[in-house]
């Protein structure tokens, strides 16, 4: 048994040696870890904001200004998610020999630590993968994206906090270049554990011309390139560089992309029916409006962006009836909370809840026109919601009922 253990240990050390590289130093891991930790935290917070907007708790504060609020938060969410892919790969590469440490489990606590790291790594890999594929509207997994992406985010942020707590002495020892040098000096004085990678600073001149700085510069460049060539789906000033994002600005009917077509939603027939009417109700008061009657009400025009949970956004000119004017026709207060129903059958977003912050905002419209023309069928003809600073999934299309709740 002893011989077997020794044999295994030697094999693991040999494999570990094969994977060791002077580049794989603790300082490198700490530098990459800082960037990745920051990217994960920003991604988590912006994602949480998006989640709370869609599933609001009672204490939620809704902001309608700036009107591009959700463009910014969700654009940052998707962009930091994309940036974290190369950073995660580099960070995991830098600690790879840790995986081959022998013995694999030294104690119960050690086993728990390794299990928590395995969970952290697996959750991070799956989270960025499904997040990226979701922006393509490609769903090759056997589970609900929304729930799993949300709960994995909590796994990751919890694991991140735990990981920092466990590794803090190491992180502090290699935080700055000066502390790194001190840590290496004191490390090399003592016993160097078997299989431990040698920090780059101890063993300069690897012969590959591939220093830690060179590696960090390349990872920074790679991350920069993927950010610059994808963020143009969310931020107009980068749209000229948009090579690798699934979405483009200024495309689609009336120059605006579509998340769900009328065919996908199965609403074409109902939406094009000549007897379409909008029902507006408050308590026992109920009114119906034909499209012509809606068009006869005072019309307002605003330039508002539409921003999707998948990160793409598009500025557009919307024209229609103010929601608060519409509510006044049935005697409802301007700050009423509303339920908006689409003609879309089934689907999570066939009905949306509109908190008072949006219903009383002067720029919240029941839009009838987009960029100077009647709404395209795929943009929600005959009428859709457009409110400032809201996720696109809540800007209900093919509206047929607005009720005070």
């Amino acid at each position: 048994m002893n011989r077997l253990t020794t044999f295994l240990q030697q094999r693991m050390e040999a494999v570990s040696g094969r994977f060791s590289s002077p580049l794989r130093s603790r300082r490198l891991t700490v530098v990459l870890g800082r960037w990745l930790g920051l990217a994960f935290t920003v991604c988590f917070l912006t994602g949480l904001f998006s989640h709370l907007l869609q599933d609001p708790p009672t204490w939620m504060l809704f902001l309608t200004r700036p009107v591009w609020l959700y463009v910014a938060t969700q654009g940052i969410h998707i962009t930091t998610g994309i940036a974290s892919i190369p950073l995660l790969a580099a960070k995991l590469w830098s600690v790879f020999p840790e995986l081959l440490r022998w013995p694999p489990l030294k104690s119960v606590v050690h086993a728990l630590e390794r299990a928590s790291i395995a969970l952290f790594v697996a959750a991070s890999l799956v989270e960025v993968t499904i997040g990226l594929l979701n922006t393509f509207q490609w769903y090759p997994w056997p589970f609900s994206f929304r729930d799993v992406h949300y709960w994995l985010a909590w796994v990751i942020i919890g694991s991140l906090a735990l990981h920092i707590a466990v590794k803090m002495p190491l992180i502090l020892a290699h935080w700055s270049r000066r502390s790194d040098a001190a840590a290496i000096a004191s490390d090399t004085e003592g016993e160097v554990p078997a299989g431990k990678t040698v920090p780059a600073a101890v063993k300069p001149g690897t012969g590959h011309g591939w220093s830690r700085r060179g590696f960090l510069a390349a990872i920074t460049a790679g991350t920069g390139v993927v950010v610059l060539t994808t963020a143009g789906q969310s931020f107009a000033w980068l749209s000229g560089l948009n090579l690798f994002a699934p979405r483009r600005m200024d495309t689609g009917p009336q120059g605006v992309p579509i998340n769900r077509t009328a065919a996908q939603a199965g609403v074409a027939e109902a939406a094009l029916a000549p007897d379409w009417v909008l029902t507006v109700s408050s308590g026992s008061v109920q009114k119906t409006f034909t499209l012509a009657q809606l068009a006869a009400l005072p019309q307002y025009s605003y330039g508002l962006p539409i921003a999707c949970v998948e990160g793409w956004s598009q500025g557009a000119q919307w024209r229609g009836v103010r929601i608060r004017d519409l509510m006044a026709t049935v005697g409802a207060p301007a700050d009423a909370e509303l339920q908006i129903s689409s003609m879309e059958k089934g689907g999570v977003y066939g009905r949306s809840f509109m908190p008072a912050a949006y219903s009383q905002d002067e720029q919240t419209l029941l839009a009838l026109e987009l960029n100077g023309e009647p709404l395209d069928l795929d943009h929600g003809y005959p009428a859709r919601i457009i409110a400032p600073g809201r996720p696109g999934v809540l800007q209900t299309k093919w509206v047929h009922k607005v009720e005070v709740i």
Partner: protein
Amino acid sequence: MRLPLVRSSAPAGHRTVWWVRAALGALGLVALGYAIFGFLANVPPAQLIGVAAWLAVALLVHDGVLVPLTTLAGGGLSRLTYGLSPVQQGIVRGALLVGAVVTLLGAPLIRAQQVLQPRGPGSGANGTVLQGDYALALGVFWVVLVVAAAAVVAAAGLYGRRSKVRKTRS
């Protein structure tokens, strides 16, 4: 678990670090507990098996295939670029790393397009998603990258030779 000692001279710093670690650890455990509760309460068991399978496969593919491949590639590259100076080797490695990162993001787009828009952009249900020519963009990106890297490698070689010549003259 043996934790390395904090190398700090001030005992007050020690105490602060201890408290920060304890607080972060506790917060982490609470968030993890919340996540596990969330999964059990919101995701049906059949889907949980799917999540577990994806988590396991992600670890296997990353640790068992991707990282070993990068190590092999790194070793092969050392042989291929044997005659080059360290700076030139660094440039080659840097360019390849940038190319690999962009490919990592570009390849799934091309695959998704094949699956969702099999007869070109716009043939699927929604013509406003995956409408770019990603294969062409990736190809052009690699050509530009290779040309730029080759030019910089050549320039570094020329500069190196000239500075060597100057050194011998002086």
